[in-house]
């Protein structure tokens, strides 16, 4: 139950949710979860339930809005959509992640050379 791992996951999930909403527009929790799973080529197997903590967190920060509506198959569901603030945050976070992954890639490559 290492907390740091959980934190990392949380941050990642928030970013994934924002990105999903930015690309596909308003969507309900299940839709978002499925979309993330699909987009990641089913490599991310998240506990779908955890998405609701992420959603409420983003909502409280004012990055997404929520509204009850009717789904494609006529079901009452809560639809989330990204706000202007959310898009800005997404830009910032995405850039951060990009940088981090670049750096990680370079560092890992270097260590491989160092081993020679």
């Amino acid at each position: 139950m290492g907390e740091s791992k959980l934190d990392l996951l949380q941050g990642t999930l928030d970013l994934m949710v924002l990105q999903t909403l930015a690309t596909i527009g308003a969507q309900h929790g299940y839709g978002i979860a499925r979309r993330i799973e699909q987009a990641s080529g089913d490599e991310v197997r998240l506990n779908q339930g955890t998405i609701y903590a992420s959603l409420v967190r983003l909502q409280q920060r004012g990055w997404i809005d929520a509204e009850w509506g009717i789904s494609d198959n006529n079901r009452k569901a809560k639809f989330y959509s990204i706000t202007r603030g959310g898009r800005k945050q997404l830009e910032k976070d995405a850039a951060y992640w990009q940088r981090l992954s670049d750096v990680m890639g370079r560092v890992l490559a270097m260590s491989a050379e160092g081993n020679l």
Partner: protein
Amino acid sequence: MGALRRALARVRSFYQKPPLDADLEAEIAAHLEMAIEENIRRGLTPLEGRRQALIRFGGIDLAKDKQREARGLMKLDILLQDLRYTIRTLSRDRGFTLVAILILALGIGANIAVFSVVNTLLLRPLPFPNSQQLVRIHQKDPEGGDSSMTYSTDAMQAFQQQNRSFQQITGYFAFSGPDNVKLIGNGQPQPITGLSVAGNFLPTLGVTPMLGRNFSTEETLKNSRPVALLSYPFWKRQFDANPAIVGQTINLDGTQTTIVGVLPNTFDFGAVFSPGAKVDLFSPAILDNMEDWGNTMALVGRLKSGITLAQAQAEADSLVPRLLFNNKHVDLGGGYTAQVFGLKDYVSGKLRQSLIVLWCAVGMILLIVCVNLSNLLLARAAARAKEFAMRTALGAGRGRIVRQLLTESLVLSLAGALLGLGMAFAVIAWLAHQGSIALPLLSSLHIDVDALAWTLLIAIVTSLLFGLAPGIKLAGGNLQSAIKDGTMGSGQGRSHDRVRSALVISEIALACVLLVGAGLLLRSFLHVLDVDLGFGPSHAAAISVSYDDSGGVAKRGVILQQILQRVEQIPGVETAGITDSLPMSTNRSFGILPKDHTYRKDEFPATFAYLVTPGYFNAIGMHLVKGRDIRWEDNDKSQGAVIVNETVARFLWPGQDPIGRIAEVAGYEVHVIGVVADVHETSAETNAGWQMYLSQTSPQLGPMGANLVIRTKLPPASLASSVMAVLRQMNPNQPANEFKPIQMLVDHAGSPRRFFVMLVASFAGLGLLLAALGIYGVISYSVTQRTQEIGIRMALGASRSNVVGSVLSRTLRLALIGIAAGAIASLLVSRAIAALLFNTAPTDPVTFAAMVLLIGAVALLAGYIPARRASRINPMVALRNN
């Protein structure tokens, strides 16, 4: 901004929990249904589709918890939950809860009470504005009592004018006793206590009258209109707090005196300058009239801002020796020295060590309380191990369980703190009204914000201290073994026992330290009581007598003789005598120099002087060692008679017979007629010093007053009315002064020590009780745990005495380790309090032996109760009972 909005959203969501929960519930339900539908569309059976959907969702409750945590005040939620649960469990275990709260209340209450005392006496500044600037100044070697602590009015005024370090130098008349003024109104004259202070005394302290005004400059001059300021309690008591009294006149000793104001309730002169004394009214000291009275003024000053004590001291060192005793007698010089003390330091500096010891003692009590509760909680936790293991198995995190335990201890200590606060309130209220304890500032004792903050701090710290041990224990425990341990009935794991034993041992050791400390202080106190004071305080009582001799010595002699004759005729009165000042109350001193030598002026210490009548020595119970008593005829104008104490005789006439020697006192010639045993003037603990006794009717020296002392076998109070009747016959204006047992003076002088001994001893008693409780708890618990084992042993042939013996030996082992550790700690601690001891070595073997015996006995007693229970175990029942 964002953080604020988020916080608000969280708070809002906390209060809207039910609707938000319902919302989430609906959302999750929709989620699952969509997932199931999709699964069915992919060709799964409805049942399998549902199963897959649930698996993918991953723990509905967990998701809900996480969402709640993210959205709201999860911590507060959990806290409330923990609180509810705590209150439920605690109210189920009422016995435990009551004992725990009571123990905590005693520990915390004692701490709050002592903190309030320490805060009032040591920490809080004196109740004057910028009190850090206030200083007390007295001479460097105050061996001669009040006279050599004080300065003449000329010296005071010169000091005030010539210094550069002080805003003001002021003073008060140091020689006024209680009940020194008669308030004459309707009916009998009433004794009240007046004090003359320099005109700038109250302004220097920063005290402004609540009503009216301070003395004007004219009112401090010779032949001015007599005025007075009333103290607040006196104004309330005597004048029903009537504001119209300001501007009216009252009759004091036959003089119409105008009341110019009333002082605020916050100003208590006695509390700061003369512990235990109450002053009813203040009048301006007419310095011009007092010039020839000698050293009369006790000096107080206010430093200029930015001037340090050291700077003031340096200036005083150069200035004060140049001050003149009397401007009219430049030849007398001055010979003054000055020591400048911060007023706060002067007031409570001597108590600092005692107070710190007291504080440490209650601190130890609190530690014992914590240890005790840790032990109780450990025992409880052990019994609840299964419950916790079950909760862990059901998904409660360790952190959550520890938090639950801490909540329990917090609730307990807050409840204890609340009850303790109540106890402390009662104790403090009682203490604040103990006028008989000569501690400064006692009347201003109260529980203030500081004390409340202290209470809260203590409560939290204690709960952490005693809640942590069981918490850590549990959190680190092994789930499986916990579940198993409880069911096997084979007794607790050894490690658990070891922690509890260690706790009990430390408890015993702490109690040891407390007991040794209290024992040493108690022995010191008994030694102080045992000191031969040089007079017999029991069976003697005194009353201040007023008479009108119109200043004639001859008339005074006749009046006093008559008073004594009539008083001695009262049935029950054995002997009677009169003195101007009683031992351990006010005093004054002169020099005494043998005639046949020339000495430097400052070669001999000042000598306490008492003007007494024949019979006084018998009445007060002093021992005439040599020579004879004073006689009424000893009023020779050319040569007075003096009786010196042994110290003086030994010093002035070593190895010689002092009787018949000629000496000089205050410029007059006296011859020595007798030697008396030394009397402890200030307290039993200080040396007697130099003393001499002259006649009340000597033409050379005027008495400071007249205190009638009677010796009787009856309780003194029973004679009060008949003595008063005689005094009234002699002088209708005799005020209704208090008839005081002499023992009261002695008790008053010893009251600070008595106070501390009483407190430390009661803390030690409390510590012992708690330690006994701790021992009982541990032994009793281990007997319960080992019921089966004991049963088996008995079944195998162990006798009852075997069982009792084994339990007792375990108790004794704990006690002995504790005592050994405690004895070592005590040796260190007793050295630290050595300065507080009187005629008692810090390693006093009697005290240590008594401590060992007492704790050993208490431990055995505490162990015997469970041991007896163990011996009554029925093997059959024990074995069958799982």
